[in-house]
Each structure stands twice: as C-alpha cells, then as structure tokens.
C-alpha cells in the first residue's frame, strides 16, 4: 500500500483538517467532529441541505459545501457511514428555521444512521425531510444495499436541491425537486483496478490484468460481471445501454451527462469516454444540455468511470444552471 498519509487511523481526521485549511472561505468544522458546514451557516430563512457518508469519495461530499449546494456534511471513516450523532451535529449547525433536507445515498448503513439522526433532530423540534439517492442501475439488492445504490448521480441532487434551497424554496418544494432529480437520474460504472482502504492495507478486490468489472460499486461491491477490457466506445455503449434501458428517453429529450472519474483514471480518458457518450446519445437524437467531466464521486485511487444521465425539464435546467460556489464545483 503506497499512500501519501501518516498513520492510517488518522486519515479522516487529517483530511478534514486539510480541507478546512485549504478552504477557510468556504468551510468551517463543528468542534472536533467530522462535520463540515458552510462558513456562513446557519443561514436563517433558508432550507438547509445535509449529506455525507463514508470518506474516500472526495470531493464528495465536503467539496460540495457552499452557496447553491450543501450546507453541511458528516464524514464517516473510509467507506463507513457517519454515526447519527455526527449527522445530528450537522443538522443542528445548519438549521436556519426552515427545515433540513437530508440527501442520503442508498446504503444500509447510511440510511440507518441518517434516519436515526433525522428522528433525533425531529425530537429536538427541527423539521427534517429526506431523499434517498439510488441512481445505479447496475444491480438490485447488492451487498450493502436494499434496492439500488446511490452513486455519482448524487451530485446532481446536491446541485439541484441546493439551488432550490438557495433561491428560497420551502422544504416541501426542495424535497420535491430533489425527488424529481432522483427519479430522473440513472448511472452506471465500471472499474479497471481496485482501491486500497488505508485501514485494510490491501486491494479491495482482485481483477485480471486485462479485465474490467462492469457495475462495480463505489466501495468495491461486486458488479454485474468481469470481462476482458474493451475499447472506450464499447464501454460507453454497455454503460449507456443499461442506463437508457432503464430511463424512458425519447428523441429530442434533453439530458445532462456526467462522466465521473473514480480517482485513478486520467482526465484525458474521461474526455475520450465523453466523446463516445455524446456520439451515442446524438445517434439517438437525445439532446445534451450540459456535461460534467471530472472526479465528483471517487473511490480512493480506483481506475474506472461512471456515467450518469439526468433527464431534464425546464425547472431542473434552471436549477442546474444556477450559481454555485463550493470548493469542488462552481458556476458563475
């Protein structure tokens, strides 16, 4: 295991310190907790958004804290859910009196801990709603999850719900657009190499020199199958076919596309994959309104990529385009 770390037990603590030192104009940390919130939180009169999950997916989620996106995040140990009291700290720190929406990725641990925190917050008089993101079409009822997993499509939810909250929409409406985003976004990924969780010290799974795994999860959970690696064109085709089979897209529908790097794949390759995605969607007469290419929801150093397609309407486009200012994502 070759990493730029100190003690493996301290990775999350030190990462959080490093994030706050890097982005003092965006983030503040709640005491010694694993909670990062907007520098200007709580913002009175605004619905607040809280998300989070296991560490190791950076920039998700701390990188998306700021104007027009999240108000606060709780970071668990690597690939491990944060505990309810961490999440509750986050909820309390960002509550501006108009309620809090939790954006939860669909993993048993995340759901359990975030829902527990929601219940505790409600007991303290804070109105809390939640959406569960389950954009991964690869597998149903995988390890770690009942139903489908939440992967990179979560970032679309952060952006759209964040914009809704920023423009002053109330909790029901923010939840409504978040749910609409969840319903409209489908994703699927593939991996070329495993990642190494510091506490574990060895690769998360085995894969042949010439193999790829289709539908692998962001914690290394099994996918659909392993097969010989194929050219980018066929990878895009496999992933998009699965995605489109699930969505009901029609000619002239408008979408947003995200080509997400899992951490170890060069940006050059993500752009090559994007070219294929655009060509394939164009062939089907689907209009691409916006594209995001980069590392949004990673798995440490895993090589691979996930594709997300979000079906747009007028409202979603407007919220997607809205101003945002966070460490990892900005729109002027």
């Amino acid at each position, binding site marked *: 295991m070759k990493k730029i770390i100190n003690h493996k037990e301290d990775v999350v603590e030190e990462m959080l310190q490093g994030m706050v030192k890097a982005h003092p104009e965006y983030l503040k940390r709640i005491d010694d907790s694993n909670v990062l919130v907007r520098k200007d939180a709580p913002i009175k009169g605004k619905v607040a958004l809280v998300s989070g999950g296991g560490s190791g997916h950076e920039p998700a989620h701390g990188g998306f804290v700021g104007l027009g996106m999240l108000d606060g995040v709780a970071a668990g140990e690597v690939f491990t859910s944060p*505990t*309810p*009291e961490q999440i509750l700290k986050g909820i309390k720190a960002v509550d501006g009196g108009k309620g809090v929406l939790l954006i939860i990725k669909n993993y*048993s*641990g995340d*759901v*359990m*801990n975030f*829902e*527990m925190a929601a*219940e*505790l917050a409600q007991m303290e008089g804070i109105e809390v709603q939640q959406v569960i993101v389950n954009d991964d079409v690869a597998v149903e009822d995988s*390890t*770690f999850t*009942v139903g489908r997993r939440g992967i990179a499509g979560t970032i679309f939810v952060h952006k759209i719900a964040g914009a809704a909250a920023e423009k002053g929409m109330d909790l029901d409406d923010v939840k409504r657009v978040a749910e609409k985003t969840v319903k409209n976004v489908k994703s699927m990924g593939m991996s070329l190499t495993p990642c190494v969780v510091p506490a574990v010290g060895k690769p998360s799974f085995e894969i042949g020199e010439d193999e790829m795994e289709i539908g692998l999860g962001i914690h290394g959970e099994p996918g659909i199958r392993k097969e010989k690696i194929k050219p980018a064109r066929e990878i895009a085709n496999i992933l998009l076919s699965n995605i489109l089979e699930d969505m009901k897209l029609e000619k002239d529908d408008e979408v947003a596309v995200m080509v997400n790097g899992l951490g170890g794949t060069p940006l050059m390759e993500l752009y090559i994959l994007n070219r294929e995605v655009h060509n394939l969607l164009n062939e089907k007469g689907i209009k691409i309104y916006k594209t995001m290419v980069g590392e949004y929801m990673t798995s440490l150093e895993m090589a691979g990529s996930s594709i997300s397609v979000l079906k747009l309407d007028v409202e979603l486009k407007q919220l997607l385009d809205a101003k945002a200012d966070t460490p990892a994502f900005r729109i002027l």
Partner: protein
Amino acid sequence: MCNSNILIKIIENMGKNIIENKDYLTELDRAIGDADHGINMSKGFSAVDAKLDEMSGKDWGSILKTVAMTLISTVGGASGPLYGTAFLRASTVVDGKMEIDKEDIINMFEQAVEGIKMRGKSNKGDKTILDALIPAFEALKLAYEEGKDTKIAFKMAEEAALEGVEYTKDIIAKKGRASYLGERSIGHQDPGATSTYIMIKSINEVLEQN
C-alpha cells in the same frame, strides 16, 4: 408495580454481562462480520455505566431515553442505531412513569421490536437481533396472556431468545454485514441476536434477586 430502581439494576447488569462477553461477541462478529460487535457494545455500555448514578431516581422514560441516546452516540456500527431506537421507542411508552405495569412491559417490547424493524428495515428470519427479540417478545406476550407472572414470563422470553439465537446458526443472513457473505453466513451464530439474548438474560438475573 415495578419501580424504576429495578431498571437501573437491570441496565447495570446488562452492561456487566455485555462487557464480560465482549470477546465472545467479537469472535462471533469475526466469522460473519467485521469483528467488532463486542467492542461496539462494550463501548456503548461502558458509557451507559458512567451515567447510572445520574439516572438514579429518574422515571422509566428518562432512564431508557438516556440509555438510548448514549448507545446511539457511542456504539458505532449498526447495533448502535438499532438498539438505540429500541430503547428510544420503549422510553416513549413509559415517559414520566416511576412505576410501570405488565401492559407497559408488553408495549415497551412491542415498541422496541417495531423500532428495530423500522430502523433496520428488517424482520424475523433475516438472521439479526430480531431473531432473538421477536421470539422473546412473543413468548413474553403469550406468558402474560396465560396469566403467568413477570418472572416466569421473562424466563420464557429468555428461552425463546436462546432458541432464536440457535436458529440463526442455520439460516442465511439477509441484513447487515453478514449478508455480504451470502451462503457463507450459514453455520454461524448471529452476534446481534446473541447480544439480545445476553441482555434478556440480564433482565432475568435481576428479577430473580428481587
């Protein structure tokens, strides 16, 4: 009927027994989990232990809520929110009560079961806590319906819990980390069901002395 003093003794005994069984529970969790259930639960109950004095003299609801919140914020791992919810739900039944009756006991257990089902999105047969807790609850309810007194009812609950623990050995896990192993989880006893059994046994030990 039952004064909250006895609850303090029960909780203290639960803590004692959980901590004594720390390695045992951890080993069970090593076979089909991440080898920390004993560590998690001991951490939780040690923290609970430290609050026993301040809980003394309080009502049933307050005590159970304190246990709940303490477990939630210290256990780490799935058993934290699960047991925490169980205690939290139970506490709502007896909020403000210094004395409780059989009705309360049944309702607390029912709430605990429902709480875990809701929090864990699980049920009997998933190879979890519930495979000890639900049989225990059903036995308790049946005993009360048959007119048995509390001590007998809890003994029957304990037996049912133990049977439930045994039962978890042979089934496949459908929830929690053990479920990641699929069929390889068969042949191994569930840690959470075991800690449930230990806790119910702990209730009995206190009832016998009182």
